């Protein structure tokens, strides 16, 4: 076997895992570490369901190799809430019914968090283009955009 040991940080915790050279970060998260909140919708970087933050940069984890996680910081959906307290984006997604089936939701939340971290006061157009890498087939995006707008307002007020 050609597995290699990788040391990384996921949601603030030190994590070690073994992986094969061709394994993606998405496969490592889901299949080796049990972090199945990150979803696979396409495996080709087209749908954004596998979005995670890698050293402050939004990436599709299906396009990152597991071995590239060495000495990096990864944030996934499992680390978004602060204990029992949901992140304002999570709360606003619930209040606005910004999800129907919910399978794209973790990716949207990660992408929206990245967007608001970089631009706390986005216009509707900035939100729409900021989230254009994430596919949702259920909602028509209307309630997602409204939830992000509302979360941005709530976070400014906080």
């Amino acid at each position, binding site marked *: 076997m050609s597995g290699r040991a990788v040391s990384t940080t996921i949601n603030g915790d030190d994590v070690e895992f073994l992986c*094969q050279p*061709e394994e993606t970060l998405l*496969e490592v998260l*889901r299949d080796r570490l049990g*972090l*199945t*909140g*990150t*979803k*696979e*919708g*396409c*495996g*080709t970087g*087209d*749908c954004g*369901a596998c979005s995670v933050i890698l050293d402050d940069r939004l990436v599709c984890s299906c396009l990152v190799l597991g071995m590239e996680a060495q000495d990096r910081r990864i944030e*996934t*959906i*499992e680390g*978004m*809430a602060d204990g029992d307290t*949901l992140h304002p984006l*999570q709360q606003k*997604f*619930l*209040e*606005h*019914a910004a*999800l*129907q*089936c*919910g*399978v*794209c*939701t*973790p990716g949207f*939340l990660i992408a929206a968090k990245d967007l608001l971290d970089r631009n706390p006061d986005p216009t509707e*157009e900035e*939100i*729409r*283009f900021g*989230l*254009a*890498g*994430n*596919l*949702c*087939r*259920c*909602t*028509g*995006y*209307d*309630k*997602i*955009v*409204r939830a992000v707008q509302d979360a941005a307002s709530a976070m400014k007020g906080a």
Partner: protein
Amino acid sequence: MGFDPGYSARKFTSVGTRPIRPDGVDKVTGRARYGADFNMPGQLVGQVLRSPHAHAKIGKIDTSKAEALKGVKAVITAADLPDLTNGDSAMYDILDNCMARKKALYDGHAVAAVAAIDARTARQALKLIEVDYEVLAHVTDVDEAAKPTAPVLNDTVFTEGTDPRPDKPSNVAKRSQYGHGDVEKGLGQADFVVERSYKTEQTHQGYIEPHACVASVNSDGTADLWVCTQGHFVYRQHCAQLLGLDVSKLRVTSSEIGGGFGGKTHIWAEPVALALSRKAGRPVKLVMSREEVFRASGPTSATSIDVRIGARKDGTITGATATLRYSCGPYYGMWAELGAMTAFACYNLQNVETVGYEVLVNRPKTAAYRAPSAPMAAFAVESAIDELAHKVGMDPVEFRILNAAREGTRSSYGPVYGPIGIGPTLEAAKNHPHMKAPLGKNQGRGMACGFWFNFGGQTCTDLNIDSDGTVSLAVGTVDVGGSRASLSLVAAEELGIPYEQVKAVVADTSTLGYNDMTDGSRGTFSSSMATISAARNAIEVLRERAAEMWDIPVDDVVWEKGHAVAKGAKHGNLPSLSLKEIAAAAANTGGPIAGHSELVADGAGVSFATHICDIEVDPETGSTRVVRYTVVQDAGKAVHPTYVEGQYQGGAAQGIGWALNEEYIYGEDGRLQNPGFLDYRIPVCSDLPMIDTQILEIPNPNHPYGVRGVGETSIVPPLAAIANAVSNAVGARMTHVPMSPPRILAALEAEKAD
């Protein structure tokens, strides 16, 4: 005791409010478990080998090298799924689609499968399987396939529904006809006639979650299946039949479902995973890749439709006819028939006739897609109606209002309508501010109507009163987009308790009676009916228990606002008993308190919608932008209005993608050229505007709360509404969907040349 499903106007407390869904926190924290998020001890990875040919005879399949590879635990072919269908041709087609038997009938058709210790080994094993193909001539276009000269996919298919039966086999599997009156006579009375042909390309439901399951078959004949599905009871029946298992011994648990839209109403990989597990003696997880989803699951029909409609100068339609050809993939379907039934359902017509032809082609088996077959028929008919209105010189909304079906109208597919919403949605559209908003340069406005039957079906629900007075609601209709919230609202309403006191779950096949799948917009309609019935049965028990606690006759106990109340002066001093108090005493008054319901939810009220949209067209490039979009639809009664809005918006967005971008593109070799989200482009956030909604509530007389299904109708009008908008913007009639930039440019150039 009998359950009366009839509508009774009542003032609602919970129904119509917008609480947070009970499965919400799990879904925003990543804890919700979808098809691929479940694992079993000793689980293997299953993968499928698929035909690279559109049409080929399968000779010898040599699996010996794959079997010899270290880490491979099972290899199967059709021989491992023997035909147990006993002459049931529909089930045989399902079996053949799951694993090709004599011929591969489309690019992507499964021919073999492996189970191995990991994905890498499974991939290697697939490459070691040797299949002898004899490549045959293929046909993928619906019009080409219908020609007598086309390669025939199945030489046992002789067009059904024709008299006399043809003496030669063909790809036209069935002819169906609907209508009434005398169309030629009606058209003869017309002052204006529009006659046009239309085409729509094949689209995919595009659910973000690929098909996924975990199958575990034990040596004692028991089995478990975890799967993302719209109908786990149906999956159980079909899988049990194909695998030769006892229905009760196959327990199917529906995972959270990451979108279905009709595409998860059919089994594909599940019998394969079960057969692999049976052969390997270990659980097997099988997850489709996105490419497999496009090549081997899903798609809707490609269509070719001819329409003729005539009207008098006063605007009255005198006759209407349509001939509809729908591709079915390689197997018999009823897709053209559904198109033929729905095509003219919005209108009050004296003379109407529709004829549908089911056409076999070398493409994946057509699956249901949200109001299956209706959007294409509506595209053709609503385009022609718009053109006819222009010819008559009437506003297209007024023209439709004049001809709209109403209560008492005999529908074009047969039944006479009860109270319906087509007229009110048109009136609402006419009065909507959107209709009066100014248009910019290169912009056009279009509108169109849509119809869908809605479905009820078999439904079973359990409602248990727990010891602390909270309520567990177990339903058997898979929650595809918020129905657990709606059904909790209904239980709370009926019992007279707060929404937060109810917890709804989707039960597995071993813990609840049979339920039809969540299709036909039936989830909330049928399960709310069963929930109301179950709650009323529970209330009967609660009244009996209160009577026992008080030692008075049960007839003296009424249920009001979540409490048992002793009525009549003689019991005047008894304080009421809350549900919580009765539940706490249950152990001493007769044991657990529950209400059950098993019913066939008849009387799903038909559904109508009217959509308005503004489209801007770039005359240089032919590219389009949706500037504004409005949906008006009748919900009967919106149980959770936010999720009703969501259904309206989501269906509109799917229709927008269908109208403007999405299509299956096949090469000359019969292979799908764009099996991925990069080249099969569904709308993204920056493609769309906000989608405005207006919910009308015209109560369904056949539901206690007046509820109608709301899930599907919203995808019916967009193709035509957008085609009408684009046509108005560019001054040329668009007749081919999707209206991609090259097609719009071609229409512009043709218009210039005229």
